[in-house]
């Protein structure tokens, strides 16, 4: 997995259909080259922080994380919490990509430092459009924080 060193998007999605639709939308804009798809929160954290046994592992910082809320094992909020509470990963943009329109889900997400909250439209056109724009925005338009500028003492953006 050499290409993993340059991962730009980490897609966390348990539903393979949705994942496929998402990847297809990204691919259409040529954004799918450095996409890694994991199916649960546990896997997402392991991808970023390494295996839980503590073996030597470099921290991986994708340029964007697309995170579903409802996930097996660890759910999206927990993953978000872990990421945003660690200063090393707190600056990684995390976009919630979910089917829930529930107000409390939106609130909880933002409280835990989500950078954006996107409801997956049922309409495929809308859906692919949304995903494409999202990728464009966060990878191309948005100015990311350089990894070297991260220091361990920096406070997380959210409480």
């Amino acid at each position, binding site marked *: 997995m050499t290409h993993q060193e340059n991962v730009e998007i980490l897609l966390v999605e348990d539903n393979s259909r949705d994942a496929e639709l998402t990847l297809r939308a990204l691919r259409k804009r040529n954004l799918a080259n450095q996409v890694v798809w994991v199916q649960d929160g546990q896997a997402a954290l392991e991808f970023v922080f390494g295996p839980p046994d503590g073996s030597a592992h470099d921290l991986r910082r994708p340029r964007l994380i697309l995170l579903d809320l409802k996930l097996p094992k660890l759910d999206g909020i927990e993953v978000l919490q872990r990421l945003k509470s660690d200063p090393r990963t707190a600056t990684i943009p995390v976009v919630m990509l979910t089917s829930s329109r529930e107000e409390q889900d939106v609130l909880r997400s933002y409280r835990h430092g989500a950078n954006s909250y996107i409801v*997956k439209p049922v309409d495929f056109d809308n859906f692919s459009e949304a995903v494409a724009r999202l990728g464009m925005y966060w990878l191309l338009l948005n100015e990311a924080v350089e990894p070297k500028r991260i220091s361990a003492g920096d406070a997380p953006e959210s409480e």
Partner: protein
Amino acid sequence: MLPSDPFEAIHRGISGRVALALGLAVAAIGLTALLGWVFRLPWGPGVDHVQVPMAPVTAALFVCLGLLTALGTGSEAGPGRVRGVVGAAAATIGTALILLFLRLQGVYWKAEHLGLDISGDAGGVPLGYISPVTALCFVLAGISLPAALPMNPPRRRLTLPATGAAGLLLGTNFVLLLAYLYGTPLLYGGSLIPPALSTVTGFVLLGGALLAAAVRAQGPRGGTGRDASFGSQALFLAFALSVAGIVTVGFLSFWSYQARFREEVERQLDAVADLKVIELAQWRQERISDGRVFFNHPDFARLVQQRLEPSSDSGLRNRLAEWLGQVQKAYDYERVYLVDADGRELAGVPAEGAGNPEFYLSPGVAEARDVTILDFHRDHPEDPVHLSVAVPILDPTDQTRRLGTLIFRTDPARHLFPLIRRWPTRSTTAEALIVRREGDEVVILSELRLQADAPLNLRLPISDQAVVSARASLEHQGIVEAVDYRGVPVVAALRAVPDSPWFLVAQMDTEEVYRPIRERLWLTVALGATLLLGSGLGLGMAWRQQRINFYRRHYEAAEALRRSEEQFRAMFDLAPVGIAQADPQTGRWCRVNRRMSQITGYTEDELLQLGFSDVTHPDDRARDWDAFQGIIRGDAPDYRLEKRYLRKDGSLAWVNVNVTVLRDPAGKPYRTMAAVEDVTVRKQSEAAIHQLNQTLEQRVRERTQQLEAANRELEAFSYSVSHDLRSPLRAIDGFARILSEDHEGSLDGEGRRLLDVICAEARRMGRLIDDLLAFSRVGRSAFRSAEVDMESLARTAFEDCSRPFPDRNLEFAVGPLPPAWGDPAMLRQVLANLIQNAIKYTQPREFARIEVGGRLEDGDTVYWVRDNGIGFDMKYAGKLFGVFQRLHGEDEFEGTGVGLALVKRVIDRHSGRVWAEAAPGEGACFWFAVPAGREV
């Protein structure tokens, strides 16, 4: 504090009226007297010159004091009136003292007549001047004036002497009035001016008025509650006083009358005696004068001398006899005769009836050188009593030689005895007599009225001093009271007749003297008895009336008590609550009612052996006993307690007791009274209700838990709906698109249409899910109340809703909307849904008009959204607000049928109403009303 006597007010009322009436009567008496003076009316300036009239000053003072007393009996006196009355009293006392001083100094100023023309006197005292007694009485009246003042609090220091003075005034003048009634008015006959009858009467009335006013002002003395005995005592005292007064004055009056009468009689006797003595002396003088004619008469002496000559002839004898005859005739002597010195009769006319020489030869006569009177004597034992004048005939040449004695003998029965016996006034027993002392005897000389032949025959021993004659003969002078010769008691005036051995006795039978006195006595007794009877009757009737009143009140009180007792008993027996009386010391019951034994299960007799603590549940006893002791101590007038009784059968009875304590007038508790209400049933009900409440709460808790669980499930359901239900739809839509995109070439037209249908239905399903979730959120989400600016809400909602239709010609009008009170997000949803509806159903219209309005109405804020769309038939109005209810085909107007249901649900959560008016083709108007908030 003792209860005030209910009869005191009546007492005061009567006293007040009596005081008023008497006061006015006093004023009337004074006014009458004044008018009498002014107009010279008969009762004024003393037509009756025996009794004095009332002085003008007295009359004026009576008018003032009478009115003052009458008016002073009003209601409670303020300090002003107290000062006024005390001032008036001081003025009265001052005036009276000045007048008293003037009178005692003997000063009579005309000013006292008050300008009236008054002169003359009655009984030696000047008219129109106040009597010192009257002045003194006015001093008393002035002192007693404050007694009439109703004062609160009563000033004993002022009223007590005042009342005493009033009593003294009344008593004194009562005595004076009685004296007038007895006909012997006191204080007459001296230099002191006596008080007039009208004055005395006025003072009696004034005293009565003041006493009545005092009773009215101070209430019956001796406190209340003993009015009957007080009244009896007062009446008895009044009776005793009036008896004493009547008897004393009667006695005094009689005594004074008797004294005066005796004095009168004595004066009369004295006068008669003096008269008689003078007459007798005169008579004797006349006799002596008769004799003097011949005494030292030279011719007669010569004649006698010649007669004594032996040569005397018959001529001479005849001449002498002629002389003597003329003398006898001229002086009306019984016999005139001449005897010689040896006692031989020389001549005498008439011829017969020679005297006894023993008398004229007695040394006193024979040797007398002047005319002497031969006192009463009988010449011979059978002769009548004679009294003679002996005239010594002396020798003209030798005066020492006595020729003889000429004797004029007189028959006292002819002149002297009538003279003595004559009595100048009419009297049946009065008589005068003369006596003479002879040794140890007293001899009656004159003829007696009642005993014939008394002269010189009736002799009485001089030692018997009880006999007036004997006393007279011992030269007693003046009035004596003793028996006379008959042994009959007489009053006599004794005199010695000058130049004679005679003593005059002018006497009158005591019987006759005392007859008028006795009559007077009987009259006095009769008058006194009548007065006593009258006062006794009057007071007796008053007493009777008082007893009647007393017993009637007694009876009424007893009857009232009986009824009260009867009512109490009835209430006691019939009361639906237990009533028990207990001893405050021991708590032992002394009286219980039937209900009480029903509550406790004991018989009444058994209960009376117990105290309330005995049947009280042990756990409640201390609490009960503390509260009981509390009211005994007086901490509170009563207490109320809920406690348990242990019934006789051992079961529990819940009771509600109200206990109060009854105290005697001294404040000592003598009984406690408890009302006991059996609340066992209520207690059981309460327990049952409590139990039910407990169960209910439990059930509510369970139900709440169930609801919460259901809610949680619903949330989980909604969550999964929003999450999981949409994913397959997206997949269907997404993969159908991918199919049509990636395999376009292998699909024909029909295939592509079918794929489109799949995509459309998937999308519709997505919308349905969204609407349904929104609908369920309305029910679940928290409700926040705030004032909502409906107008701006409506505008933004319209902007949001019209944005997808930029091509449509939409006119939107929003009037001024009152702010609403509710959840802003929900109300926004309502407006949005309604506006969306309006936009939707005006689609066929070329020109769509949507109007939002609102107003305040009966405490509600009412809003409406009106459109000119296609409208609907009102018969389906009931279906409008149901979930998934639609009035138009989905092909005609797309929609999920949730919008209006959501509107209704939101308005329901606001406790409001929602309704619609419409007609097919004529547009629709949707109304909703929510209660105006507290700040709207």
